[in-house]
């Protein structure tokens, strides 16, 4: 391990992380999203009472990386598992970390009803417009015309339907306390994403209902792009279709000052 003199130290592993190299592909923004969650949990001093729920998908091994208790849910069922945990231990901090196939396709029932019930859980939702773990198939969030291994000629909305804007949809539910979309394509947006993640966990701790942060993310390997091009793709193609913004800011959540 390289040691750095303390006065030169500007960046280190957050306490919320275990000392485990991640399995994510080069250029993928999962690592960034993980780090933001770990930093927020550390800064809030809640690592000790947090239980994470990992999905099925690229983040299936998320439980290896966080310095908290963790469980691993069946595909799409993380919000239901999180509900079971939170309901019997309401004083704990419970979050799910889910991709777009997991949350917006097979797990659509679970996420909608967790939000409708106003479950006091926090959901980190990674939207990278494809199924990463299984090798880049079309997801509910795949853009019109976008080529994937299961839409080889580009997503044809006539036969394969339209992308789902999850944050907008969930924002219509009264149980949702805080639902926002952010992006991880540049440092400014990463900082905004971190702030949103902090507000989401604060929403949970204050009992203000369901909170979700959707993060537009890259998947350079399955998109067949260099990492920098993938970041550009998010900015130029994904943000216009999935506009960034606060879709549900309940009166309580609006009071949260970071």
């Amino acid at each position, binding site marked *: 391990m390289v040691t750095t003199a303390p006065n030169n130290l500007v960046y280190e592993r957050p306490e919320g992380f275990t000392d485990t190299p991640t399995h994510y592909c080069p250029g993928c923004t999962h690592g960034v999203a993980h780090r933001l969650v770990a930093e927020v949990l550390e800064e809030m001093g809640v690592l000790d009472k947090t239980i994470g729920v990992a999905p099925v998908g690229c983040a299936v091994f998320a439980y290896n990386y966080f310095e908290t208790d963790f469980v691993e849910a069946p595909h799409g069922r993380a919000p*239901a598992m999180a509900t*079971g945990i939170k309901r019997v231990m309401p004083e704990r901090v419970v979050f799910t970390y889910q991709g777009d196939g997991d949350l917006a396709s097979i797990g659509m029932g679970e996420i909608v009803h967790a939000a409708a019930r106003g479950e006091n859980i926090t959901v980190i939702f990674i939207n990278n417009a494809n199924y990463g773990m299984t090798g880049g198939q079309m997801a509910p969030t795949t853009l019109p015309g976008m080529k994937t291994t299961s839409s080889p000629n580009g997503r044809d909305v006539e036969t394969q339907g339209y992308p789902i804007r999850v944050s907008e949809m969930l924002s219509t539910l009264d149980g949702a306390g805080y639902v926002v979309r952010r992006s991880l394509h540049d440092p400014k947006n990463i900082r905004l994403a971190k702030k949103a993640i902090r507000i989401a966990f604060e929403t949970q701790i204050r009992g203000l209902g369901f909170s979700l942060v959707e993060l537009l993310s890259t998947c350079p390997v399955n998109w067949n792009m260099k990492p920098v091009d993938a970041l550009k793709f998010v900015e130029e193609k994904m943000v216009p279709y999935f506009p960034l913004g606060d879709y549900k800011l309940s009166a309580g959540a609006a009071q949260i000052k970071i």
Partner: protein
Amino acid sequence: MTRELWKGNEAIAEAAVRAGLEAYFGYPITPQTEVLEYLSRRMPELGRTFLQAESELGAINMVYGAACAGVRVMSTSSSPGVSLMMEGLSYIAGTEIPAVLVNVMRGGPGLGNIAPSQADYSHAVHGGGHGDYFPIVLAPASVQEAIDLTVLSFDLAEKYRSICMIILDGSIGQMMEPIQMPEMKPIQRKDWEWATNGKMGKRERRILTSIYLDPYAEEVTNLRLLERWKHIQQDEVRYKEYFLDDAEFVVIGFGTAGRVALSAVRAARAQGIKVGLLRPVTVSPFPHKVIDELVQRVQGLLVVEMNTGQMLEDVRLSVKGRVPVEFYGRLGGVVPFPDEVLSEIQRVASSRLSLEVNPREEWFERMMAH
């Protein structure tokens, strides 16, 4: 203690409460719904968790989450709903955590009907969900036994970090009988050495998962589950026997079929036929040993079920072709009358039985001839 008149489904619900049920997650489906309705009133008044889930998928995964936290948790459903729960059940088995699931069985396959059935025997006993695992499955024949087994199910689930299922025919869920309730036990949340309930400054972090990407690690897990199952087979077999001491013929049936058969056995005894009844209470682990002993001293067996002979296969595994096995089944939610079973006992006791015949095929031909 006084005896009270209780409906099966409500009795199961109250028995679970008294056994320390801390959380219940369910979804409405006939003929199980009274469990959900009862607990929707009872759990909140005790400050415990009740939640009506969005689906059986949601319900079983809420059970999964609460079970990971280490609390006594249960769901109940009926056949089509239990099919949906099989995904979660497999994960719970693979994660090696305790959970109780009650299936108030109805006629099937598909939407079927809402009449009492035993058609989910194989589905429950031989897995149902994917992967190699062995659930404990209990089969009550009365409301009182349903109560007693509900209490037992939590202890078994926790002792073996296993799923414990109770399968009861819809009739037992729906019928009222005089029963005695167990004493109310206070909730004693145990700090299990495996529970993911937050580090709270006391310990290293814990992970609960059913994923073993390395096949060798999965094989070790499969072997651990099998080893645990061998202990369960050794120590947890339960059954009821009636008139077996001098029996020349033995009827084998579980749940309602076993109960109806008991009336028939009594009637046959009154006619001088030396017949007894074996009623498995744990259908998994199955009472292979007791059947093995019976086979050495009886002339033939008659298996009675409310399905096409699903337990029959397990009986034949015990018998290993040593004595003739006959079968009588009613299907699709039809409950046999004692007279029908009595006729079968008379037929079996008076005919020349063969080791060569396939009991299901013979029964099928008799059914089709009617």
